[in-house]
């Protein structure tokens, strides 16, 4: 049933209702959610599957654990604190180094040890939890981001989000932190999302909020036409995300570390829809292409094959749109 937005439907744009009822409900069984919602668990599963992830330093499961945090972190100058069950980047703290007794945040602000412990204790008591119940705080390796995105990001770590449909990469974007996002790569916090041509790994136009933009608001550099490095590897990790999570409609978030290359940060069972604006294209034709592909051949067990198979898919249906976008 459709009441309005017929032109959007022709453009293949996926809306929230259809995403929930048509894709998430049939493809993402509820029992699989903990695999991606609990980041501690995701990390363990990912390591098992041989996926590169940031190293885990410490997990605080209780208030008592939280107090042991300073000792556990003494060896690490920089690290990231995040809630295991958080959503949308809420509650994430990126510590860049130390300044006397204080921790220096990526924004340049200083934070006392008491303030840090309070933050961890808030996480453990469930303030950022999706369900509102008790949670764990995890502390992990802080990614040393690659210089390649320096021209088009402000502080923070740009990350790559790839939508994986039934195991096949379908659409991608790079999320570029801005001053207003406080170095975070979440679109609703003010980061800029740049679409990525899935066949080539070249950035396309971008979206800030719900508006299309062409340049980064802080560096004022053109966003279009930047090559995302390790593109094949990124696609492969994304495809592997399906094997780890078994979610048919999945968002895989990755970062590119200067030394370690692509690392999987987290996976999302309800990825947002702004990626469509960043790419200037709707998701539905791509899903249809993958459905068609899967109807003609058996599912390819090798994630690398699925990642490679996307070229064929993209050329068949999606590329013309991307090309017109670039032109």
């Amino acid at each position, binding site marked *: 049933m459709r009441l309005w937005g017929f032109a959007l439907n022709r453009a293949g744009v996926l809306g929230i209702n*259809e995403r929930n*009822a*048509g894709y998430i409900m049939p493809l993402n069984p509820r029992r699989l959610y903990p695999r991606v919602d609990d980041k501690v668990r995701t990390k363990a599963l990912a390591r098992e599957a041989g996926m590169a992830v940031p190293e885990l330093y410490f997990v605080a499961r209780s208030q008592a654990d939280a107090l042991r945090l300073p000792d556990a972190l003494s060896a690490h100058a920089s690290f990231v604190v995040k809630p295991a069950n958080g959503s949308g980047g809420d509650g994430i703290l990126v510590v860049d180094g130390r300044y006397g007794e204080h921790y220096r945040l990526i924004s340049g602000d200083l934070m006392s040890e008491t303030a840090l412990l309070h933050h961890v204790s808030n996480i453990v008591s469930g303030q950022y939890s999706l369900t509102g119940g008790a949670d764990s705080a995890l502390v992990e390796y802080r990614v040393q981001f690659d210089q390649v995105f320096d021209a088009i990001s402000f502080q923070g770590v740009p990350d790559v989000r790839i939508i994986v449909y039934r195991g096949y990469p379908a659409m991608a974007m790079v999320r570029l932190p801005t001053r207003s996002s406080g170095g975070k790569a979440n679109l609703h916090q003010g980061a800029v999302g740049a679409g990525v041509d899935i066949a080539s790994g070249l950035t396309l136009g971008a979206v800030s909020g719900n508006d299309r933009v062409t340049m980064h608001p802080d560096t004022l550099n053109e966003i279009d036409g930047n090559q995302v490095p390790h593109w094949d590897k990124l696609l492969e990790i994304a495809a592997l995300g399906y094997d780890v999570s078994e979610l048919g409609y999945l968002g895989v978030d990755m970062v590119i570390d200067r030394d370690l290359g692509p690392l999987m940060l987290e996976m999302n069972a309800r990825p947002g829809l702004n990626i*469509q604006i960043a790419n200037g294209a709707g998701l539905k034709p791509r899903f249809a292409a993958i459905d068609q592909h899967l109807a003609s051949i058996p599912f390819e067990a090798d994630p690398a094959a699925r990642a490679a198979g996307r070229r064929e898919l993209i050329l068949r249906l999606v590329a013309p749109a991307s090309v017109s976008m670039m032109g």
Partner: protein
Amino acid sequence: MNNRSVHVIAFLCAVSGLALFFYKAYRLGFPLTADTDRTVWTIEASLRFDARPGPIKAELKVPALTSGFTTLSENSVSGGYGFNLDYADGGRLARWAVRSADGEQRLYYRVVVYADPSVEEVDTTPPFPDIPALDEPLRTAAVVLMEEVREQSADTDTLVAELLTRVNDPTPGPNVELLFDGLSGSLRRTQRLIELLAFARVPARPLRGVLLADEQRHAPVRTYLEVHNGVNWSVYNPRTARLGLPSNFYPWWRGVDALADVQGGNALDLNFAVRRSQVDSLDVVAQRSVAQGSIALDFSLFGLPIQTQAVYAVLLMVPIGALVMVVLRNFVGLQTFGSFMPLLIAISFRETDLLAGFVLFSLLTSLGLAIRFGLEKLRLLLVPRLTAVLIIVVILMLVISILAHRLGLETGLSVALFPMVIIAMTIERMSVIWEERGAADAIKAGVGSLTVAAFAYLVMGIDALEHLIFTFPELLLVVLAIVLLSGRYTGYRLLELPRFAALEKSR
């Protein structure tokens, strides 16, 4: 569950809800709107007589067949008398009896009715009447008159019409003059007409009753002529020859005998009084279903104690508010705090009025939010912090109530009706969103919540709707059907149209 099963379940819900609704509305006469008053008539027959020594038996003929009227209740007022009702030929008999009584006696029989065109009482087909025994020369006059009338008519209806025309002619023929000489009063004239019709073997009887019009302390008993044409009874006004009864004629008795009779008393006087009153339709339905022994009302909300009914009057509107919320969230795409919080705010608006509710709610949340930001600096753990916010909300409510009372603003007192836990949770949620995603997002969700609450409040406040749902709770099945269907709505939300507008143009 695929779309088909959702559609089937929704269809079944909607059909059963609507079927029950239509049955109650049109079969049982439950009123569709709140202010439908029905005109109800009270007809009171009073018997007055002087008691003689010894036992007294009084008899009053009371109605049994009353086409066009539904009886709500009947009773008798008769101090010290035994009373019973029996069926008798032509109607029913009310009988009073007492061993002894002194002085002037008054007995009352009272019936409460309302006009109901759907009521049709079945009546029996009478046998052909015998030729009445009349003395000469009346007998010859009757035979001749009826012979003429028969010749100038085709069937029973035209025969009666012809007879009445002749009888009511200002210059009647000699036979008519002879037959009706000295007969005054419509009862006696009608009696003679029935005798004449018997010569033509046409069954007829007098129908006596009162006109229900205005207030009448002494309502005259009117007589109509009922004639059976072989299929059914038709009624004529013996004076004007008009066919049919006036719709406000309440048939009391069929027959020529005196309506009241008393043994052991003198100077019997029978008087009819008519009183009109307006009664709420629901009371009419309630009384009638009691009179008919129907269970429809026993299993409706009206069977509950009044206080419980008042609770349900509010509770039953909650699904309607929830429906509004579904529409605003899933079809329009407004952001709110939590799923049901706007609904709870809307319910508390019912106690405070929309504007006062808006002001009080915004005031409480913003004050609470300011204090919550202060608490943030104290670095409290989650549950103690929530509790602290809750206590502060209660204190704020108290302060607002007292201040408002001092200022003479009575609506300020109703602040206490806001669910404080809801406000505390709102403040907490809002402060987290504020900190994490900025003031814009927090305010957006706050405004969204208030908008949904306002819409839900306005819709829940529609009196006609409240009456409808309360009288016909089965309509909730229809609401359920709509909600089920919207659960499978995969179209865009209205606010997604501007959001994705750029994509539309790029194609």
